[in-house]
């Protein structure tokens, strides 16, 4: 009976401990299924929104550049999930100098030999008229499973 009475306290301490360890020490920032429940906790100030436009899926050239989020029948990934994966792809690459060192999963989302370009949209959300601050920049291209930074591509 004592265990049942104190269960909520023990379990809450255990849960928080694992959630914090997961947040601090793991790449995914959590150890499944212990989550710190920090949804929408930060207020966006300067928006840097990465997006991927695809030219080629496997060996098939697309008639026009298509946003990866619209290729659901190819990757079968949900909109929110894939958007966060694009975001992680951009931020992971920002942290490494040699892009060939990238070890993440994003290159597995589309079939081999696919070609796509990563762009970022920047918006200053601290301004009331945020629309006038919008700019777009090309970051890199992926060809034959190789990451080619924009500077080297041009």
């Amino acid at each position, binding site marked *: 009976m004592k265990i049942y009475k104190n*269960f*909520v306290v023990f379990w809450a301490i255990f849960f928080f401990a694992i959630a914090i360890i997961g947040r601090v020490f793991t790449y995914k920032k959590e150890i499944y299924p212990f*989550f*710190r429940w*920090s949804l929408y906790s*930060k*207020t966006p100030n300067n928006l840097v929104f990465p997006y991927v436009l695809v030219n080629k899926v496997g060996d098939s050239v697309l008639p026009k550049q298509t946003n990866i989020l619209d290729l659901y029948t190819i990757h*079968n990934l949900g909109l*929110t999930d894939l958007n966060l994966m694009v975001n992680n792809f951009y931020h992971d690459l920002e942290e490494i100098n040699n892009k060939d060192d990238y070890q993440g999963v994003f290159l597995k989302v589309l079939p081999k030999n696919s070609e796509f370009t990563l762009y970022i949209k920047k918006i200053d959300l601290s301004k009331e008229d945020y629309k006038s601050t919008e700019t777009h920049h090309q970051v890199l291209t992926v060809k034959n499973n190789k990451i080619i930074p924009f500077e080297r591509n041009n």
Partner: protein
Amino acid sequence: MFSKSNEELYNEIMTIVKFSYLFFLLVLFVQLFADNHDANSYMIDPLWPMKPFTSIPAGYLVLFFQLNLFMSFLLLCFKPNHKFLKVYVFIIYFLYMAFNNSFGKINHGQYLALMMLFCFMFIPTKGKKDYQEKTIFTFATAQFFLLMAYSLTGAWKLLWGIIEFFTKEISLFSPLSFRNVIITQYQFVEPTIIGAWFLEHYYIGWVMYLTVVYIEICSVFIFFKPNLHKIWGALLLSLHLGIHFILQVNMFTAPLFIGLLLIMSPFYYKTNFKTTLLSLPVVFETRLLFQKLRNNN
């Protein structure tokens, strides 16, 4: 805390538990349509529980999980307190969630369901020593964790709000905060009618956003105020409806468990309008503070 007898509470809880497995069955049917893996696709980023199964095609894994869960939940509808079935269904559901989150990103929508199955495992079988009290404590624990999840969401918003107030131009305390959340979300989802309206009338959106933070932060305190269980359940459901209408984010299982654990709360007792209003978090504490100050004087 309890206004009813243990016998009464136990019977109500067991009815809720029985119905919860039926709800799990319904959730499973919704997921049948969402999982479109075939025999040629594999997990691209398996979570730790799925590491031993990386070489098995995703289509076969989905089939295994869904058939097993269908059979288990169906049997639990008839035998809601069968020890082996409860443990088995938790393990399979745990693995199924790990599988669903092994494609690059962890989606937290189903975590509450997992937490509930975990708690229900500890409900003792009839006839065990103190089985009624133990069942009541276990059910209360499930309620606590549901409410704690919402409190944490609110607490992080408040914490980051305070940090950003001193370090950035726009924080939770700026009227532009909710507008900025909507703009960020609309980079990858189509704007909704209500969301577009809030972009224009962001002051109103901000006030609602602060109300949401209040509801979230105070959730865990509601655990100790059974007369507010149903009201808070309704507020949390409204919160999810608002999130859907404005941000197009769906956590379709969360409302189900809010319904089972709070709207149907066996601990609930009715109080009149004035008492209910005065027991609201912050209102109650403020009143208590003023009463103490008055008594000291």
